[in-house]
Each structure stands twice: as structure tokens, then as C-alpha cells.
């Protein structure tokens, strides 16, 4: 199957990645050759095979809904690109 740069551009939009035109072209070529290699999987009949879920069996891990970490507001906010009081400051999300 031929991968088009339109498909790659749509995937970049889904992945929230702004690509320069030369990056888009380069990725189209690279992804095409990687996907071609992946096509190897078609050689195997998997119609009767269950998809993998986990390597080591474990049932769901439940715990009480309790706060166990220390409040560390200053350390957490210290990493934020922008803050106001004890909040993260983010771009407007509703027009």
C-alpha cells in the first residue's frame, strides 16, 4: 500500500505535531518503508488467535480511594510554564 503525504499530514494533526514540509516528505518516505516491513505480519494466519492482553496474569488491582502522597504544591507548580496563585495558567480553551 502506498502511503500518501495527505495521510501522514492527517496523522500529524491527530498527534498534535506541527511538521515542516520537508519533515512531512521525509516522514512519508520513512514510514512507508517501515510499514512495508510490518506487512511481513500478513504472512501469518491469525484468524484463530486471541490478541495478547498481559504477559503475567494478574487480576485488577484495587485500592482504597485515599490520598497517600504529601501535598507538594510548590514543587509541582515550580515546573509549570505559567502559573497564577496555586493554579496552572493555560491558554483560553473556550472561544
Amino acid at each position, binding site marked *: 500500500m502506498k502511503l500518501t503525504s495527505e495521510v501522514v499530514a492527517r496523522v500529524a494533526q491527530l498527534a498534535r505535531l506541527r511538521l515542516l514540509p520537508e519533515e512531512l516528505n521525509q516522514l512519508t518516505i520513512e514510514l512507508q518503508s517501515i510499514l512495508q516491513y510490518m506487512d511481513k505480519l500478513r504472512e501469518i494466519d491469525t484468524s484463530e488467535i486471541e490478541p495478547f492482553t498481559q504477559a503475567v496474569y494478574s487480576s485488577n488491582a484495587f485500592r482504597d480511594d485515599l490520598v497517600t502522597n504529601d501535598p507538594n504544591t510548590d514543587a509541582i507548580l515550580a*515546573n509549570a510554564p505559567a502559573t497564577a496563585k496555586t493554579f496552572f495558567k493555560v491558554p483560553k480553551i473556550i472561544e
Partner: protein
Amino acid sequence: MNLFSLTIHEASDKLRKREVSSQELTEAVFQRVAETDGLIRSYITLCREAAIAQAKEADERLKREAPSSPLLGIPVALKDNLLTQGLRTTCASRILDNFISPYDSTVVAKVRSAGAVITGKTNLDEFAMGSSAENSAFFPTRNPWHLERVPGGSSGGSAASVAADQCIAALGTDTGGSIRQPAAFCGIVGLKPTYGRVSRYGVIAFASSMDQVGPMTKDVRDCALLLEAISGHDPADSTSVNCPVPSYSKSLTGDIAGLRLGVPKEYFTSGLQWTVDEAVTDAIRQLEKCGAIIEEVSLPHAEYAMAVYYIIATAEASSNLARYDGMRYGHRAAGRDLAETYMLTRAEGFGPEVKRRIMLGTYALSAGYYDEYYLKAQKVRTLVCRDFDTAFKHCDAIVTPTSPSTAFKMGEKIQNPLQMYLSDICTISINLAGVPAISVPCGLDREGLPIGMQVIGKHFDEPTILRVAYAYEQQTEWHRKKPALSHA
């Protein structure tokens, strides 16, 4: 004997006998770093001051009490994708350039409470995506055995730091071979534990169904000691398994008589560098001399593992890396609106390989391609797992090369992603199946570059692979060989 050359067990012994202090040991290690890291560049962040303080504290504890852990006072390096409270944790990415972790990962908390001295944070391929440490956003690390060669990846900084004696031991992470392949390239020991054996809490996620933290050490005994210190159930990681941690060092008996070792023919194909083939074949003969029973086994789906891995790992990565949106931490670009801020933040913050994998993973998960790629890969993953189940009915452990070649040249594969991916061909099936595996040095090629042998075990059977690796190590001198570092 230089103090920095010591292993954990040798140094711990000297600390106990008060022949040397942790402060002396730590200062010797930092002296070594000062002499060698200008060229090798194992470390992204060094914490000399804090380390000396930790060493002094360890010395006080050693005066007061009999040490409860062999790690007390031992300088250990950490891969820079392990969260360390109050310390910069970058994952070798621009997007986390200035990130100071507000908490410790469980593995780091464990080595800290054992009294280890943290030397610093080591270089890696950005977000652990790569096989050469060249994908670091900051600088590549060089192989101490040959400065024009890569140290392997992604835990290239940890491997190089252990090989160059810039720490006594290190922690790495392994999603597709990222501990074992650099261990092989740098002539050290590295172990990828069973999935669920070691907590992933506070380990920056790449592919969550395969990521594991493990030891990178100068010999097998150290590997057992460090593994014991980091293993165990953690309620903060819902995939960590609640089963007892055995005393791994007790499995180092040197006796492997009657043990059945499987050799899968699929791993000894024409793609193998002949010197690697020869060294691993010799090593298998050595194991046979020690009384092991060698049997041919088959892992028929081995040839599909690469395709399966690069679909599943990238799909998981595309999902895990969605969190880097520039809102709560990390780099934020100046966009005109929210959508553009996201797009530019990620475009500026991620390097080319990370973008490539996010794109591949997003594609494999997107509408119209999900069944064809992601679901198909998960079905073939079931077959890869069954291969191991079947093989382990006939043997107790499996022996293979760790990598098809020795350390390749810097720049040799960086332009060809598929070629780079293929350098993981011997290690990725192990992560798909969640089984444990260790790499031990088993020779040098004609250019003097280290070769690694991989021993693969059943789920939670780390004791057997450590036993095999130790028995082999007892018979050989490969683990004692050191890079000359003459041009460093």
C-alpha cells in the same frame, strides 16, 4: 587497585571492614568522572555535592550499625528517565529540559533507603527510543572501548559509566533491549527483569506493557545484589506483581550440572556477525563443560518480533507521550491559540526519532488501520509468547547472542531507522513475552569490542539465569577486562 574500579560487593566489603570510607570511594569516583567524562559524556547531570553529603551520612551509619544493605555507601548512577526528587530529570528531551521531579520513583526511593550514593543522571536516547544513545537531545555518549563507536542504547550513558568506572553500578531501563544491548556493547552485565518484578512508578513511560527497570553492573554478583534491592511489589504500580523476592545472590552457586539450556536456531542466522557467532558458540560449549545439557529449541515466530514490537511499542508511546502538551510542566511554545500551542510545543520539544515513533504509533491506532496493524500485532504477540512457553517445556533457560553485532560506528545507522531497529533483533521478543534475560560479557571481537551472551528465563525465574551467568563468569575472565581509555 583504584577505588573506582571496585564492584559493589568488593566495595561493600571494604566499607564494612572500615578499610575505606564511602566518602573516599565517592571522591575517587568523581575524580574518575572528571578525568574521563569530557570525552565519553555518560552523564547529563552530576550531583557531586549531594553525593558527598550522602556518603558522609553512609559513613556515619557504618560507624553506628552493621549495614543492612550491600548498597550502603555505594556510588550508583541513574538513567535520566527515573524520577529523582529535587533533581533534574530530562529523559534526554528538550521538552523536559528544566523538569525538576517533585517525587522519587519507587526504584530510586529503594536505592536511596538502602543507603546508596547517587552520582548523577545518565544519558539516553530521548524517551529511551533508540539503540545507540545518539538520539539524546543534548549530546551522544561514546563507547569507552572505542570512542568512535556507540555505547548502545537506550541506556547508553548507564552502560558507559559502568564500563568506564564512573560509578560502581547503575540502573537502566529496558523496553526492547535497552539494558542488555548497551551492556553487551560496553562489556558489562545487564539484566531485564520479568515484567511486573520491579515497580514502574515514577519511571517515565515509553511502552508500558514492556518497560522494566534493571541493574547494569561490573559482574553477576553485583547484578543479583542490585536486583534484590529494587525488586518487589509496589501498590503504586498496578502491574507490579505481588510475589516474594528471593535472595538472588543465594542462587550464585556456580553449579549448573544437569540444567537444560535451549539454543534457538533462529538466533544463529546469516545476519549474525561471525565473531559474535563464534564467541557465543564457544560460551555455550563452556556451559556444556560445566555440566549443562544443551538442546536445540525453536522460537519460530522470532522473525516477526521486530514488526510486532515496533507497532505495539510505538502505539503505546504515542498514547503515553500525549501528556507532553506544555500545560502543567515542560516546554511550552508561544502559539496564537490552544491548538497551535500544542502543535508547536510538541514540534519544538520532541526530536526526530520521537516524532517518527509518535507518528507510527498514531497511524497504527488510527481509524481504518487499527485492525490491520495494532490488533494484528497483538495477535502475533500471543504467538511469540507461546513460542517461549513451548520452548520452556524442553529447557530451563535459553541462550542466544545479545546483539547481532558488536558496537557500530557513530553515525552509521542514524539516517536509517529500520537498520537501527534491526539492531534490537535478539532482545525484543523477550520484552514482548515479559520474561527475564541477562547479558554477560563473553568475548572481544578482532577490534577489541565486547560481545555479550544473553540468557533468557521463565517468568520470575531470575535465579536460574543469574545462576547460569555466574557459572559462566566463574570460568572466564571477560568481565574483568577493562577499556584502555588511553585516548580519553
